[in-house]
């Protein structure tokens, strides 16, 4: 028994020493990252600065196995290849903020020049992003923003107003300007979703929409099965429902699939934000008349260019500065360090076959 205990103590000591040793041997090199002056810290934009070759750019989406981000990141890769940088895509397999933090720390440890990320939580990854920025990284958010204090730029897929207006316009047309509608959203904490919902509610206040009543907001958690069941629940709870707006690609696809296999097909209108590839079948079978989305590939492309422009010092993130984003042309930085991609595209039976993403 005593021998056992001695051994236990010894192994414990070994483990502790190992841990401390691994920490200590790097202790002297600590802060070396801080020594590198952050390029944008000069505070002076030089529109003619060259993008350095071999700039390392990492895309950190909300989660890896989300087709939307696969497409967006591919756009990023195209841009990075154009300016001869080093592209990488890393990310968690589940869309949680805590696992994103681990990845941000890793990227910061790897001395990545540009981190392009879509936040799973506006605040939870803030601390890690700021640490990475102190270590010299440029941080660009896209799709879902963080607190503006934690990033250099936010590449917005479309102005929130534009998205809200387009969706309300679409649903109003499809239900003939009158009746009950519901919103099927993603996770309750998603920054962009909540901003759009708020603006849609404001939009509905306008006199031309007075016949439309928003009865509820349901959450499908950006999970296919949850969204499917939420749709089912909505239709049972609100027998007079005339239409559903789902401003999330996962939600609208699940809702469309439910409607298409149910007796409500063609009776209950559905619109929102979806990808043409996911929605093609439901546009063809008449479940969905029209829906909208920006081009996620362009979004990733623009975010990668914005990150490079920042890192090179062409812009500092201040309002009014402009930079060139490859084939997309010139963009201007708006208030709060936001760059807007452009108005969303509306897809319907006439044009859906022109798109493949």
């Amino acid at each position, binding site marked *: 028994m005593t021998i056992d*205990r001695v051994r*236990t103590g010894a*192994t414990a000591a070994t483990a502790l020493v190992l841990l401390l040793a691994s*920490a200590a041997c790097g202790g002297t090199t*600590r802060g070396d990252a801080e020594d590198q002056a952050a390029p944008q810290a000069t505070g002076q934009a030089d529109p003619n600065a060259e993008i350095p070759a071999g700039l390392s750019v990492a895309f950190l989406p909300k989660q890896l196995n989300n087709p939307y981000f696969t497409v967006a990141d591919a756009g990023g890769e195209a841009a990075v290849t154009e300016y001869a940088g080093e592209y990488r895509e890393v990310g968690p397999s589940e869309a*949680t903020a*805590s696992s994103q933090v*681990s990845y941000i720390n890793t990227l910061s440890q790897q001395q990545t020049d540009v981190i392009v990320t879509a936040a799973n939580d506006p605040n939870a990854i803030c*601390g890690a992003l700021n640490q990475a920025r102190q270590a010299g990284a440029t941080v660009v958010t896209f799709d879902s923003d963080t607190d503006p204090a934690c990033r250099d730029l936010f590449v917005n897929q479309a102005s929130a107003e534009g998205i809200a207006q387009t969706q309300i316009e679409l649903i109003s047309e499809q239900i003939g300007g009158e009746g009950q509608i519901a919103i099927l959203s993603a996770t309750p904490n998603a920054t962009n979703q909540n901003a759009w919902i708020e603006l849609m509610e404001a939009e509905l206040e306008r006199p031309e929409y007075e016949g439309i009543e928003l009865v509820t907001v349901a959450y499908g958690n950006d999970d296919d099965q949850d969204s499917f069941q939420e749709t089912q629940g909505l239709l049972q709870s609100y027998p007079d429902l005339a239409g559903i707006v789902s401003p999330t690609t996962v939600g609208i696809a699940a809702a469309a699939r439910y409607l298409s296999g149910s007796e409500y097909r063609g009776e209950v209108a559905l619109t929102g934000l979806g990808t043409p590839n996911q929605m093609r079948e439901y546009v063809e079978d008449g479940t969905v008349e029209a829906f909208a989305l920006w081009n996620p590939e362009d979004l990733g492309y623009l975010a990668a260019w914005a990150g490079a422009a920042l890192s090179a010092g062409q812009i500092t993130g201040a309002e009014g500065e402009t930079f060139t984003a490859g084939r997309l042309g010139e963009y201007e930085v708006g208030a709060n360090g936001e760059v807007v991609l452009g108005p969303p595209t509306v897809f319907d039976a006439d044009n859906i076959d022109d798109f493949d993403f």
Partner: protein
Amino acid sequence: MALDRRLFARWDTAVIAALAVSVLAASLAVEGFASGRNAGFLVLDIAAVALIALPMTLIIITGEIDLSVASTLGLTSAVMGHLWVAGLPLELIVVLCVVLGAVLGAVNGLLVTVAGLPSLAVTIGTMALYRGLAYVVLGDRAVADFPFSWTGAATTPIPGTPIPWIAAAIALLAVAFGVVLHATPVGRALYAIGAGGQAAAFAGIAVLRTKFWLFVTAGAVSGLAGVFWTLQYASARADNGYGLELSVVAAVLLGGVSIFGGRGALPGVLAGVVLLGTIRNALRLADVAEDALTVVTGALLIASVLAPNALAALRGRRRPADRPAPGAAADPPVPTQPSTSGPTRELS
């Protein structure tokens, strides 16, 4: 019995050796691993699992299990956010959250000891219940406006080192749990309970009372982990720590604790926690995709139970059945024999 103890002591050492090897290999092969900052990141990554693994080790050694720990973490996080919004001072909230954790643990403890229900089933139930209550408390909101002096403190390093303060807290608790488990009569009682509940009862050990307090402890520590998690991510949410229970159990089992109770030691468990964290950290730095990390975790876990058996088989020795077989899985080897050709016996 003696043979078994030695075998598991060896597994303990094996995990620590594996940890040493992977730290060394990673330092040499993975750029950016051997640095103070990275060690700090590593500690933050494993902090919650390390904290909860301490009481979980004790619980599993007594032959029980607590799957509700991650939900307890989530519920305390949600309550913390709710109370903060309600205007309570943070010092008080922290105390209340730890107490809440203890109460949640006590509910588990009562159901297991007084009602005599199996802990696996009970804590699957409370896992759903506590997580559900977390959503009821905070719904879909996130509370994120905690003062920076607190959220920063959760992640700032101890002056002069790159290691965050939480490491000191973990070390302190680990020493406390280690002493209790390995150097007091209480610790010996835990092993006795795990080795055979009734024998321990006959030996004068208050089996039920001991188990009850273990669940309370697990709850309190999970509550503490909930507070830490909330501050670390500066975000109180009902889904905080979702799925963490499996990581904790995996780390404890990898550390050489027998799922049937009665065997295992704390150093091995801590080594297991750090080993899993190290491998994940190093592979991430080496740009290995997340799915490979998942496979490695699972494979290590299987190896941890397979290796002792394989070792025993290699030595040509059969593990003595020192206590009633707890399940078909732990039975002595079953010779695959052709089905009995005799007259079939009626079974019902």
